């Protein structure tokens, strides 16, 4: 089953075509990497898929719901984590989770159980009452992820989730992504770290609004006859 199906999705701003007829599918439980140079149209495409921006034309089914007629249901069934983490610094770890859980309408008792389990899994139980302001960046990152997962979304969109964290924390986070995907959650992720692209089941490369390449990391390396995704990217963008 596909959890993301995008067909000829297009967005124009005046005369400028930011996203130009992109078509692709993502399987349930797949880790799908979304790469591209700055200004290639990644953010615009992602905003449309999250139901935050109306497409000019084309269609998409996200988590089984139509982008055109069921954008509200899409929002309820996806999670989103931005590189700035969107946590409230002056609330505690627990309060942040409670706030986001309540926004998604999770009943109080159920929410408490989920927060408890989630903190336990992240080994952050002792930090429940600490202000987010005072916890290290790596923890903020894991907390932001857990918060985006509280309402048990089918798909989670991660926009440069590892930007600026240290190399060990970056790797721990990918382990977390991998565990989440193996539980059947679809992961849609953007990154500028080319080694991370290799962790994805499949990756795509956008350029000038078009989706130019989609495939497994190995397929793309074979196709471009290079040894790493970094070289695929460089070769591709320089063409």
């Amino acid at each position, binding site marked *: 089953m596909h959890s993301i199906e995008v067909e000829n999705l297009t967005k124009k701003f005046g005369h400028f075509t930011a996203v130009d007829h992109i078509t692709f599918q993502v399987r349930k439980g797949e880790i799908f990497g979304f790469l591209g140079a700055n200004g290639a149209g990644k953010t615009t495409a992602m905003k449309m898929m999250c139901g935050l921006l109306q497409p000019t034309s084309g269609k998409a089914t996200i988590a089984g719901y139509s982008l055109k007629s069921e954008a509200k249901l899409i929002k309820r069934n996806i999670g989103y984590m931005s590189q700035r983490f969107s946590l409230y610094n002056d609330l505690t770890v627990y309060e942040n989770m409670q706030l986001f859980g309540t926004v998604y309408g999770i009943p109080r008792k159920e929410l408490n159980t989920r927060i408890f389990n989630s903190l336990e899994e992240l080994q952050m139980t002792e930090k429940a009452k600490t202000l987010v302001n005072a916890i290290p960046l790596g923890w903020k990152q894991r907390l932001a992820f857990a918060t985006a997962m509280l309402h048990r979304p089918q798909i989670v969109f991660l926009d440069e989730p590892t930007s600026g964290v240290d*190399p060990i*924390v970056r790797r721990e986070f990918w382990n977390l992504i991998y565990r989440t995907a193996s539980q059947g959650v679809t992961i849609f992720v953007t990154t500028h770290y080319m080694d991370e692209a290799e962790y994805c089941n499949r990756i795509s490369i956008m350029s000038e609004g078009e989706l130019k390449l989609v495939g497994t990391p190995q397929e793309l390396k074979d196709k471009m006859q290079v040894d790493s995704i970094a070289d695929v990217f460089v070769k591709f963008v320089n063409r």
Partner: protein
Amino acid sequence: MQAIEIKQLNKSYRAIKAIENISFSVAEGELFGLVGPDGAGKSTIFNILATLLKPDAGEVSVLGLDLIKDYLKIRRKIGYLPGIFSLYPDLTVEENLRFFAVMYKSSIKENMKLIRPLWDQLSAFKKRPAGKLSGGMKQKLALCCALIHKPELLFLDEPTTGVDPVSRKEFWDILNSIQTQNITVLVSTPYMDEASRCNRIALIQNGGIIKIETPQQIVLDFEGELFSMETSEIFHLLAIMEKCRLNCNYYPYGNHLHIAFYGNKAELLTEFIQFLDEQHIIYKNLEAINPSIEDCFIELINKKAHA
């Protein structure tokens, strides 16, 4: 004379120690990199050197001038590209550049030579408001504005964060060319792969410096024996590696596992291969490799964590 000299620098924000006992110096004409994750204290160092923030303790001299007494003189001689976009979004590209030139009693014409390679790419957008440029173009304009008065010393706080790999390489080519114009450059980055473009780097984490060296020496100082192998089941392998009780350090690197052995290399390698076979792991290209700066950073952090 050193372009920058810092001794035992400390700065706290209330209870949070941003930087603790930091000492380093940068020679004239050097391209020096502060390499480390967010929250390491990089921006605090820049703000102090740019005379925008008073240190709690420590000695600092910038271009031979005293940080407190001579702050006005320092400001005239430095260029600063902060980590957040700080140009006027509603002025055009050209107006921003002219504004900075005039503020420093210089003119665009006078120092055009210095910014020529950048300006050639920007001039197509001369009349566009700076706020409406793409991320990469904003950075190029900001660099032009920091250079237009021909500073002796240039501070660049994470100029390539969030920038794609191809544009990053371009930006570093420009930095290397700036260096040839007798401008000292202090630059910070969270990307380990950029470290090799610097003359020397300081690896920095949690407000302290872990190591200062040339990138070449940092690699030579790697203590373990590093091997790499390729597998399509990297996360499965990571999950079972706990059972591998060898004196080693391992972590994923894309679809490769990097493993650093500490001790008798030949013995450890044999035991590791035996382990892989017992666990029915399919792999290829198991070989000794030269560590990258990222491998070195990981080794240093691990060492510090276990110390």
